[in-house]
């Protein structure tokens, strides 16, 4: 792949990751904050030049007001200057409580919606940032647990062999013979319908782990089976290294190539998986926010017919998944030629 492709990957992924990490700071509002008087407000235009053409270093927006019962808004002549490092809603971040946000308009009660607002007057930019945070978090935690379980059980089965091997691999077959989504639905049926967003987070992580562990376990077992016959492993055993040490120091490091590739392949799948779950009503539910709930709003009739700005999350989701797929392709290609990827 050419340089430009790489640049695209890193820029998108960098922005998405930074957005997810710094979401509470970058978002001017909390995702649940409702400005009831400003429902379906179109994106607020940010200006540097006013109507006379005079330039202002500090960006500003024009004050606006709703002109009827319907979501119709008209801008006035009055300028409202954007403020930076502005005081706003409190949030927890890195174990401390903060109240600063990147930007906002504190002078008036008018909210600033860079990406417009939804039916309840919630800022879409804030929801997008928090949604990204949730979806990426779920994906990464899902990968972490999937790989941990897969490596743990796979190396156990491959290294111990015998009855343990049979037991683990048959369980593996059981899970692999089941279409993933049915597993999800079965699991969802056991859990009460109304659960908090935090509980949903761990539920989805559990679901991803249950779906993903089988294939990872199978591959790791296969790799351990061949790796444990290698010369350097036999040598370590002759010296008197314990099983534990052989496994940790001499076998598992050699599976890291596969693990890195697998992680990059699973992440976009998990992001798409969360969207599917939310679509079927078994994932995050309102007022919680994730890529799935945002996409549900974006594909509604109102969004497509009247309030086009609500479809913005579609672009973000698509670019994110596309970049992760590109990264995965690249890692796969490098793994094929046995090169170092870093």
């Amino acid at each position: 792949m050419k340089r430009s492709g790489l640049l695209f990957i890193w820029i998108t992924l960098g922005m998405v990751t930074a957005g997810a990490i710094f979401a509470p700071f970058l978002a001017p509002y909390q995702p649940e904050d409702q400005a009831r008087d400003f429902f379906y407000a179109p994106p607020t235009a940010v200006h540097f030049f006013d109507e006379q053409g005079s330039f202002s270093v500090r960006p500003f927006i024009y004050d606006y007001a709703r002109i009827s019962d319907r979501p119709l808004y008209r801008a006035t002549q009055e300028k409202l200057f954007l403020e930076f490092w502005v005081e706003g809603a409190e949030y927890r971040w890195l174990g401390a409580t903060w109240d600063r946000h990147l930007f906002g308009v504190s002078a008036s009660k008018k909210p600033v919606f860079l990406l417009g607002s939804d039916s309840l007057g919630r800022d879409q930019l804030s929801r997008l940032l928090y949604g990204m945070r949730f979806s990426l978090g779920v994906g990464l935690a899902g990968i972490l647990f999937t790989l941990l379980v897969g490596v743990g059980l796979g190396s156990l089965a491959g290294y111990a062999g015998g009855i343990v091997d049979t037991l683990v691999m048959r369980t593996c077959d059981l899970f692999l013979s089941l279409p993933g989504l049915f597993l999800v639905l079965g699991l969802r049926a056991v859990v009460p319908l109304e659960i908090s967003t935090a509980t949903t987070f761990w539920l989805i992580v559990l679901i991803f782990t249950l779906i993903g562990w089988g294939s990872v376990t199978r591959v790791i077992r296969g790799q351990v089976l061949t790796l444990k016959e290698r010369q350097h492993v036999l040598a370590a055993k002759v010296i008197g290294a314990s099983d534990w040490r052989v496994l940790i120091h001499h076998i598992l490091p050699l599976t890291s190539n596969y693990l890195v590739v697998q992680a990059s392949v699973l992440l976009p799948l998990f992001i798409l998986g969360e969207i599917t779950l939310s679509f079927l009503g078994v994932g995050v539910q309102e007022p919680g926010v994730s890529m799935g709930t945002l996409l549900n709003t974006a594909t509604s009739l109102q969004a497509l017919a009247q309030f086009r700005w609500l479809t913005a999350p579609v672009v973000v989701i698509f670019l994110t998944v596309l970049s992760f797929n590109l990264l995965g392709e690249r890692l796969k290609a490098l793994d094929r030629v046995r090169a170092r990827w870093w």
Partner: protein
Amino acid sequence: MVRFIGRRLLVSLPVLFLLSLLVFLLFKLIPGDYLSEMELNPSVSKQQIDDLRQELGLDRSLPEQYLLWMGNLATGKLGYSFSQRRPAADLIWERLRGTAQLALGAFLLIGLVAIPLGVIAALRVGSWIDKTILWGSLIGLSLPTVLAAVAFLYLAYWTRWVPIGGSDSFLHMVFPTLTLALPAASFFVRTTRLELIDALNQPYITAAAAKGLPQYRIAWHAFRNAANPLISLGGLTVGGLLSGAVIVEKVFSWPGLGSLTVDSILNRDLFVAIDCVLISALMVILANLAADLLMAINDPRVRQQ
């Protein structure tokens, strides 16, 4: 050959048995049953509920209920649907047809479009055709199924090319099939290309070219060798298609097994849910078996093992 198939099917029996037990226990883990919701209705008396519960067999002990289902399985009725009051088998055959149509359509698209595209890309590595195909497949892979489904739905709505909703004619099938096939087909394009490029770089291809074989025969040589990973991928794809079908069926209101599964789980229609999960698992197992057989037919080396 027959012994091989027989052994594989025998081995999968305990898996299916465990699976049915698992679903059954999951259902029984949740407090309440199919009738719990009805109990909240003040116009239905306690007597009616008890009668119904007895009629449906929900008043018996857990092992009895499970054996009831097993007995029904043996008679081919597969239990009965609580909500529709008829043998589950009828219901499932009806819906299975819908899903099978979609899945077969998707496989046709994979075989007739995706694989040829992958071959073309591999034969013209680095050209603009290759790049277009690569990017197109990457986009297909990155689109959430929900989004693709809704996009196709609106396309159909605006252009009025095909009717939407239901499954009355062949034309109804077009967009659901396209949506279902999109991610799988995109993946197939990319895998075909990679495997074929690998095969084309082998020494036997150089030898074939040195002998002066025509290009199409060289490509055929390479393709036969690249085909096995594709066949095994095809077997694995069935599970993904069944999962994808749930969404496609919901969006296009297509009567299929996926939506039946979701509904039966959410309605706590016990026997139908177990049957649906089992049938899906059986399809996955059969698909993998078929893939193994096809690989043996294609490759003599596999046959010897």
